[in-house]
């Protein structure tokens, strides 16, 4: 806590009263670096500075003169500058903004555009000052409360309260039956072996296609070569795949020609014309 520094800034009034003292203060301050009257380190930011300055007006914050406050702040900053103190950007931004606010407040008529008026801005600043002051006071009141382990104490040796947890189990008849049923079917299936699936093999397809070779001068769809009883379901799909694979094999051997006009379109088969087959 920087009570000392705050008190200095708050109380002396050096900051806000005329600028003369600072002129004199410059030399020794530069020389020793220890006699700074304007001590920005003691403040928690520009709003805090403004709040301190506002308190010097000795009126309720709602009745504060923002114009006067802006002047005070600007004087404060220029004093600090004259002392060649390092001033954080925040403080300079606030100075610029206050200078702007001042000009807005002094302008006789409102700006044409929809910007907030100088009065609005002043009200906003007043609100921010009030809010920070409220929080500073709240913090002080909080810290003034009796604190546990310092001002008040809890039972030093609490004997403890036994808490006995008794489990009550939940299960429904359905769960019971289902568990049994699943257990049994699992036990049953454990001795079952997966039966080999009835699938149409490539050998089957090869045999079947070979029978047609030389007997199909015109393009015919691959589907038409599928066995009539094997055109649906898993086995139907296996028949398509096997027949297609078999047809590729026969094409490779030069015993068949394949055609597909477009992607995913039907696949056509035919025997190669005699002339081509001979080449």
């Amino acid at each position, binding site marked *: 806590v920087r009570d000392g520094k705050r008190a200095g800034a708050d109380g002396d009034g050096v900051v806000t009263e005329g600028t003369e003292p600072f002129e004199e203060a410059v030399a020794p301050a530069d020389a020793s670096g220890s006699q700074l009257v304007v001590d920005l380190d003691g403040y928690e930011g520009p709003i805090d500075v403004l709040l301190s300055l506002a308190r010097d007006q000795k009126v309720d914050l709602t009745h504060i003169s923002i114009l006067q406050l802006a002047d005070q702040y600007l004087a404060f900053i220029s004093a600090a500058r004259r002392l060649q103190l390092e001033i954080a950007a925040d403080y300079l931004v606030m100075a610029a903004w206050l200078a702007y606010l001042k000009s807005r407040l002094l302008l006789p008529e409102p700006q044409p555009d929809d910007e907030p008026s100088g009065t609005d801005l002043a009200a906003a600043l007043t609100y921010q000052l009030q809010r920070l002051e409220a929080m500073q006071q709240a913090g002080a009141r909080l810290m003034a409360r009796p604190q546990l382990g310092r001002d008040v104490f809890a039972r030093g*040796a609490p004997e403890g309260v*036994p808490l006995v947890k008794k489990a*009550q189990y939940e*299960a429904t008849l359905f769960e019971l039956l289902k*568990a*049994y*049923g699943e*257990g*049994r079917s*699992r036990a049953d299936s454990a001795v079952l072996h997966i039966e080999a699936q009835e699938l149409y093999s490539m050998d089957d397809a090869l045999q079947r296609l070979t029978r047609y070779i030389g007997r199909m001068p015109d393009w015919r769809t691959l589907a038409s070569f599928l066995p009539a009883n094997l055109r649906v379901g898993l086995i139907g799909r296996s028949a398509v795949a096997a027949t297609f694979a078999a047809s590729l094999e026969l094409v490779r051997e030069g015993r068949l020609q394949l055609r597909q006009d477009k992607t995913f379109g039907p696949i056509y088969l035919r025997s190669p014309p005699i002339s081509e087959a001979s080449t």
Partner: protein
Amino acid sequence: MTDTPTDPRADALRLIEALLFASASPVEEASIADRLPEDTDVTALLAELAEHYSGRGVHLVKIAGGWTFRTAPDIGPRLKLETTVQRRLSRAAVETLAIIAYHQPVTRAEIEEIRGVQISKGTIDTLLEAGWIMPKGRRETVGRPVTWGTSESFLHHFGLGEIADLPGMDELKAAGLIGEPPVVSLRENSQMSEVAPANAAEPEEPSPELDALAEQGELVAEHGAEH
């Protein structure tokens, strides 16, 4: 209270009270006296304080040469709070319970044979704690193993008149509770047979159970829709 804080005697009593309350261990009379004016009759004050608390929920007692507050002996046991915690049975426990119900009297080894997985010790304990199973005498074979059966409270809990009321396998099948082996059982089966022996070392709940659990939600929903 008739005590006013300005009365030195009452003030001393308050200080002793606070001190004994906040101290982590019993406080000796001398240590109390240190905190009070020299001429204070600490013994008399302690007696007064003990008297004040004699009818209350905490008593002022002397323990190991020091003074401290303790819960009144008659109240201590009543501070205990029993809370019932609802707990769901694990899948393994439900299945074990089901096997006991259907196959009773049944030994642990037989349960394991039926389940194809070892039973962890806790499973039987849990079912005993729930009060749903009870020992039903010993099987007169090698080792004379204990057999298990269900209890009266099992019937109550599951709303059964007698064990014979449990649906038979055919009825379970009809209700869809025993299904046909699923199409993808190849993976599951091989896992089962591989995992089971390796699993013998560590008890219960290998991954197949998790698979089954994952499906469980579906099954329940399905079932709900049926009825």
